[in-house]
Structure formats: structure tokens, C-alpha cells
């Protein structure tokens, strides 16, 4: 019924980033290309990491463990004595190291920006209108972004790429892997979810009455959203009717009916109306949260919650919704009336109520610091294992990829991180990263600069 509108992503990704005012030597540009685009991910020979402490996520910690990867998958995991390493395997000594699954960042702008202040490098949001569900971040995703190697050097192997929250419906997310020969290989799921933002930040032209454009109030935002979903329902009905008539015509040799006019905006909303895809419902305060949830329920949308940084007074209500929460960031400033740790302790408060939580950096340049947020939450009551799950298995579950990602289990994608300590501590240095079983070069534009000026 709705033909896929995604095609030209290759063309977009092959566009080199331009707009720099400073020129680098040509060699630098070449280095950048070499380190950002990784060759196709094929892993033929088995590779074993031996002697490390394995944080499996699903079945506890294995001291002095062995993990074997082949064909891009984990093929064996266990204690050194229980796992037989296949002959011909490359063995890497990981004694003293901590090994854990690749981390998953549940909201980033990776591939949508290079330099924040340089607009020609930004594809963060189409701000010309509020209702933009036909925007696909996958089509702007810049696979060769210099930011991607920087993030993956700290063990982030997968991420949701979302537009920023300046529209109520800014477009659709994609779920990426932070390595691959090109955008196609890195885009694991296109249009996996869609943000619906209701934080008050989406109001147009806040300020003087003379400057305002619709919608300039929350009631404006809500009515516009409601109209969009009603229009999409009508649109869907038209196509269902058409499909019925078409089948009838074919069966009864009648003339083919005239197809309704396609509307990309409304078309994009249909999988969400049908509950086939997830809405990422963002709100901060109890009032916005409840308005947003009412709207979502009115159209029976399947949703997860996002932010809710200032909804501490309604956490039981949040728990009653029985949906996961992308929480925070916990660095969000408290309101004037809130204690300094009101947001720091939110993950723990949600966990206590049985809510599944995940973390997000909500960033592009700072994706590498995702684990810090999880670690910091433990200082305010979140159990350590839950903090780690919130950037691994929980995230994989929320994004529907738990059969492939989020833990060290046989059969899963071999996204494996080797570090010199606790993954949630800010001092820990990641030594090796494997994505689909392939060793990622531990270089980025930043390490190149470091090495250049260390000579």
C-alpha cells in the first residue's frame, strides 16, 4: 500500500562534508576517509578473547572467561575450562580486561551533524513545519562522519539516530551500527521509530504576538497533532477502500478504480497508527506528559516515553503505563523548586517502580560519554546491573533487536568491547572494539591529531 520512499541514501552519504573554512592538507582528508569508512564487515576465521572478565548481562559475570566470535556472531562463551577454542582461531589474551557487549545509545544525532555552529554541516531537523513524519533520518545519515569513530572508540556500537526536538513530529529515526563500508551497511533499521515531542519547546515564534506563527501554544500543538492523525486515519480508510475496489475490479473484470492521491506525510503516519512501529513520546513535566499520553492513547499509538525529567510527582502513573522510559538526560537542570539530585535520582526512582529504563546521550559529539551517565545514576540509587542493562540489553529490547544485540550470548552479533576496567567508570579506557566480529581500528580524527602533535 505504501511504497518505500527510501532510496537515495547512498547519494547523500557519498557527499563529502564541505563548508569548512579552514583547509587541511590533502593527506589529512585522506586519513579521515580511511579511518571513518571501514571495509565491509566480513569475519571468516574464528577469533577468541581469552582470560578476561566477561559481563554477559544475561547470565552474570564470568571470571577468566573465553568468548569466541566467527562469521560476525558470538559462537561460544564460558569459562576458560569450559570453552574449547576452535583450531585455527586467532587468540587474543584479554587477561585483566573487562569484556562486555557493545553499548547502545537510545537517542543520538550521529551522522546528522559535524560542527554544531556550522549550519551547512547540520541536518538535525526540518524546522519549516511541525508535522514532518515523512522526514527520514536515514536519508541524511552521513556514514563518513568524523564523529562516528570517536564514539565507537568508547565502546558504543549501536545507536538510534533521531532528529532534534524542535518539531512535534520531526521525522523518523533509524537504528545504526557504528561501523560499515557505507551507509547501507550501517543503517540496520530505517524508520524504526518516530519521535512525538510535547515539551513546550516546539511552540513557534514564542514571544511577541506580532511574530507568532501557528502553533504558538500547547493547545495549538495538540490540535495540530490530533488533526494530523485524524487525517492519516481518513487517508488510510481511503486506501483500504481503494484496495477493496481494486480487488473487486480484478475479480469481476470491472474497470480499475482511480487510486487516491498519495500524501507522503499521511502515509508516513500509518504504520504508527497501526501500532506496527514505536512512537517515542517526549515530555518533561507531569502536565505535558499526561497531555501527550492522552493524545497517544486517543489514536492507540504504541509508545515509549522520553525524558520526563521533571515528572517525579507522577512516577506511579508513569509505572502504570507499563512502557519503557528513555530517561533524562540525568544532567537536565532541576527546576527551581527541585533538590539538586531530583533528576540524578530519576533512573533509580523509575527502576524501583518496575519501569524499564534506557539511557541516551541526546548528543552527537558526546555519544562517547553515554556510560558516564549510567555510572552516575548508580551514585543516586540505581543498581549497577540495571545501569549496565540500560545501555545494553534494555535498549536492545526497546528497539526490537534483543535477539541480536545487548548481551554476550551465543548466536548474537559479535559486538564486543574490551576495556581496562569498569565500563561505567569515567577513567576506564577501551582497548579494543569488535563490531560484527571485526576489530575496529582504534583510531579517529582525534587520535590522529594527538599522534601528529606528540611527535
Amino acid at each position: 500500500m505504501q511504497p518505500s520512499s527510501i532510496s537515495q541514501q547512498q547519494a547523500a552519504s557519498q557527499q563529502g562534508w564541505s563548508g569548512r573554512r579552514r583547509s587541511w592538507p590533502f593527506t589529512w582528508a585522506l586519513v579521515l576517509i580511511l579511518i571513518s569508512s571501514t571495509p565491509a564487515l566480513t569475519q571468516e576465521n574464528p577469533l577468541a578473547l581469552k582470560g578476561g572478565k566477561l559481563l554477559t548481562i544475561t547470565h552474570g559475570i564470568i571470571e577468566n572467561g573465553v568468548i569466541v566470535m566467527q562469521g560476525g556472531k558470538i559462537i561460544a562463551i564460558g569459562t576458560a575450562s569450559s570453552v574449547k577454542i576452535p583450531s585455527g582461531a586467532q587468540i587474543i589474551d584479554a587477561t585483566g580486561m573487562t569484556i562486555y557487549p557493545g553499548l547502545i545509545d537510545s537517542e543520538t544525532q550521529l551522522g546528522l551533524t559535524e560542527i554544531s555552529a556550522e549550519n551547512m554541516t547540520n541536518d538535525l531537523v526540518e524546522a519549516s513545519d511541525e508535522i514532518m513524519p515523512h522526514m527520514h533520518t536515514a536519508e541524511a545519515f552521513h556514514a563518513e562522519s568524523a564523529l562516528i569513530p570517536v564514539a565507537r572508540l568508547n565502546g558504543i556500537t549501536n545507536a538510534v539516530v533521531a532528529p532534534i526536538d524542535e518539531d512535534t513530529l520531526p521525522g523518523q529515526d533509524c537504528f545504526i551500527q557504528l561501523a560499515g563500508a557505507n551507509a547501507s551497511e550501517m543503517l540496520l533499521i530505517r524508520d524504526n521509530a518516530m519521535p512525538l515531542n510535547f515539551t513546550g519547546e516546539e511552540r513557534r515564534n514564542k514571544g511577541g504576538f506580532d511574530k507568532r506563527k501557528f502553533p504558538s501554544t500547547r493547545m495549538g500543538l495538540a490540535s495540530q497533532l490530533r488533526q494530523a492523525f485524524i487525517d492519516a486515519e481518513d487517508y488510510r480508510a481511503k486506501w483500504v477502500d481503494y484496495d477493496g475496489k481494486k480487488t473487486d475490479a480484478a475479480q469481476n473484470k470491472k474497470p480499475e478504480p482511480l487510486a487516491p492521491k498519495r500524501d507522503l506525510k499521511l502515509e508516513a503516519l500509518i504504520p504508527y497508527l497501526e501500532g506496527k512501529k514505536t512512537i517515542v513520546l517526549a515530555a518533561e513535566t507531569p502536565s505535558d506528559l499526561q497531555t501527550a499520553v492522552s493524545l497517544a492513547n486517543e489514536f492507540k499509538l504504541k509508545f515509549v516515553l522520553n525524558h520526563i525529567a521533571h515528572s517525579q510527582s507522577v512516577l506511579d502513573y508513569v509505572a502504570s503505563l507499563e512502557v519503557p522510559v528513555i530517561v533524562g538526560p540525568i544532567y537536565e537542570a532541576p527546576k527551581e523548586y527541585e533538590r539538586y539530585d531530583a533528576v540524578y535520582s530519576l533512573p533509580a526512582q523509575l527502576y524501583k517502580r518496575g519501569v524499564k529504563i534506557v539511557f541516551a546521550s541526546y548528543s552527537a559529539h558526546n555519544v562517547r560519554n553515554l556510560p558516564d551517565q549510567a555510572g552516575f545514576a548508580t551514585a543516586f540509587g540505581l543498581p549497577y546491573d540495571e545501569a549496565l542493562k540500560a545501555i545494553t540489553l534494555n535498549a536492545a529490547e526497546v528497539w526490537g533487536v534483543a535477539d541480536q544485540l545487548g548481551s554476550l550470548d551465543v548466536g548474537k552479533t559479535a559486538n564486543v568491547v574490551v576495556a581496562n576496567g569498569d565500563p561505567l567508570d569515567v577513567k576506564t579506557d577501551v582497548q579494543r572494539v569488535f563490531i560484527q566480529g571485526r576489530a575496529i581500528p582504534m583510531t579517529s580524527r582525534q587520535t590522529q591529531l594527538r599522534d601528529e602533535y606528540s611527535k
Partner: protein
Amino acid sequence: MRRIPTKKLALRCTLLCTILVAAAFSQSAPSPPTEVVIKNATVMTVTHGNIKNGTVYIKDGKIVAVGENVSAPSSATVIDAEGKYLTPGIVDCHSHIALDDDVNEATSPVTPQMMMKDAFDYQDKAIYRALAGGVTTSLLLHGSANMIGGQAVVIKHKYGATRDEMLFPNAPGSIKFASGENPKRVYGSRDQLPSTRMGNFAVQRQALVEAQDYMREWDNYNEKVKRRDKDATPPKHDLKLEALADVLRGKLMVQIHIYRADEMLTEIALAKEFGYKIRAFHHALEAYKVSDQIAANNIGIATFADWWGFKQEAWDAIPWNATMAMRKGVRVAIKSDSEDYTRRLNQEAAKTIRYGGATEEEALKMITLNPAWIIGVDDHVGSIDVGKDADLVIWDGYPLSTTGVPEKVLIDGDVYFDRARAGFGTTHYKEGE
């Protein structure tokens, strides 16, 4: 990047809220500091190593003894810090909190007569949130819209005290200079000078030339007065030029917002041309490219741990900047420039251990003694040494980690923050209890 709308937050503070805050502030002046003993802590002195099971004895707001065996009178208040860490209070040498958005007088590229003290909003909750993160002293700077901004104010985070009690006593003066993208963007967008880096430096040089003339006029006048010349007439007082003359006289420390290495070299050359000293390069994300020159001129840097890519001139930023510069002899501070990051500068400092292998003491120094030097208050704060102000943080958990958090924060020997307390955890500020 998700924008945290702090400006709006401040503006949305209702009238009611303002009244409540005002009431809370007027109710409670800090009690005078008494004798305090902090016992059984791992004392991280910054200057002379760690002391396990150490004791710090505080009298009249000053540290009077530090060591394993310290005798103190039984009348002293005892804080048992067993299993905890004790560090000096964190010093943030680049902050714009508590100014109610009055950060930039962006109406002229040269505004040295601006006094940040005049905008100091001592009731700003950001002071409290930073305090809860272990910050006890901050340098509140003018913004970077102007090539020559205003004069900074040094505060102690005595949240709940009066405005004047929060000013750091006798702190030396600092003035903010800027460079690079910000001035050229602000004035260039209005089709004014400066719109380029050559414009930037021309504006700076012109202002300094005028200050030289002004200083000469006054020197001549003073000379005449000394000679009892009856014809001596005083030149006109000009606040702007007076402030710049103080730069030339070495009375104001110059703190320069700067990113690129080439601009650092130009600023060093300008300082030599006009005979003043640069105290520190702030941001200084390309310091690693010219560390030798920075070190040779005894200029400190106040940098981010790992920020990058937010603008073109931050594109070559690398997280090894701090440690690479440090190893070339540069005095390095990690600062926040942020209402957010100032709440967890300990974590930012810990990143220098990961990126470049700073030692524990080196990392801690970057948020205590070194920023104190940049502000010019290192004789008073920044380490746990006898004679210094008793600005101390008791940490629950190792401070150079993601999980270490302040349990109590003392300023001048008085507890201003206690995590275990109800409400805001503040002792002198009572709202919310």
C-alpha cells in the same frame, strides 16, 4: 545536541518563587565558624600526597593542622569521615552562573569597565547546585562577545549567606579578553568591526594604544603634581581606559577566551608588544599544538576535558589536550563554562587520567590548585594546607570517578551542604524543608 533551556528556566521563575527565595535568604545568616575536626578521612591534600586516616583541624575558618596525628581541643565539633575522601573544595575558574543572563554587554567590542560583580545574582540556584557538586569557589567571567569584556568577580558558594559574604575577600582582579569566532560573529553580523580575526586583533590593539596614551597623560599629570607644578590639570577620568591602563600596569590579570593555536601566538605577541602578562588561555582547545610557547610564558590554560566540534574553532579539540599541555609544563585547569558541568567537575578531571594518564594528584590539581592559581587565590584555597581557608569536600566514594559524590561541603570551616539533610541539603538556606 539537546538544548537545555536554562535561560527560560530563569525567566519562568514566578513572582511567588522570588518572594519565597527572598524570605529564605533574609532569614538565615551563616553562624560564625567554630572549631571543627574532620577525622578518619583519606585526605587528598593535592600538595603533599594522601593521608590515610587523616585528620584536619579547622579553627576560625582556616586549616590549622593536617596529618595522621593531630591534637584538637575536645570542644571542637567532630565530623567522622571514616571510609570517606576529603579534598579541597573545587575551584571553577570559568563560569557564567549567577549573572541572570547578563553575561555579555555586547553593544561594543571593548567594554573593560563592566564589573560582573554588579550583575552578581547571589540567589541563583546554580550556585547551590554547583556547591552540591563540591564547588566552593568560582570565577564569574564576562562572556566572549567582546574582544575586551568586563572584570570578573570571584565568589565563594556560601549558598544562603548574604551577597557580600559570598564575595571572595581580597581576590585579585581579572579581566576577560576574547578572540576568534564570537566577537567576529557578534559584530560581523551587524556589519560592524570586527568581522574577521584581523579585525579582532585591530580592535584589541587600538584599545591598548588608547590605554597607553591615557596612562601617559595621567603619568605626566602625576609627575607634574609631584613637582608641585601649579599648572597641572588632571586629565578626564575614563572608566574604560582606566581599566585597560590597569591591564598595562599589571593590576588586572588577563583571562583570554581563545581556541586556535595561531591566535594564542598572536595574543602572546600582543602581550609582549604592550608589556602585560596573560594569566590564562581559556578553552585553549588547541593548546597541545603550542604548549612549549604557552609554558615558556608562564600562561595557564583553563580547558574542557573532552568538548569538541561545537564550532569550527573547536574542530581540532582532542581530549588529550590537558595532559599533553601539562607534560610540556603548562599549568592546566579543567573548568566548566557551564551550569551543568560545574556540578561534576570531579568527573571531568578524572577524564584526564583516562586520556593521557594524569596521576590522581595531577587530575585533582586541575580542579583545585591550578584554577586557584589562574584566579590568583592559590595562597588561600586549592589545597589542604595549614593556613588555607577550610574549603573542603567530604566525598562518599572516590572523587575521581563517576560514582564519587559530595556528602558534605565546607566553606571557611562551615558546612554549607550536607547530602543527608532534608530539603535542599543546605544548612544556611532553608527553602524546601
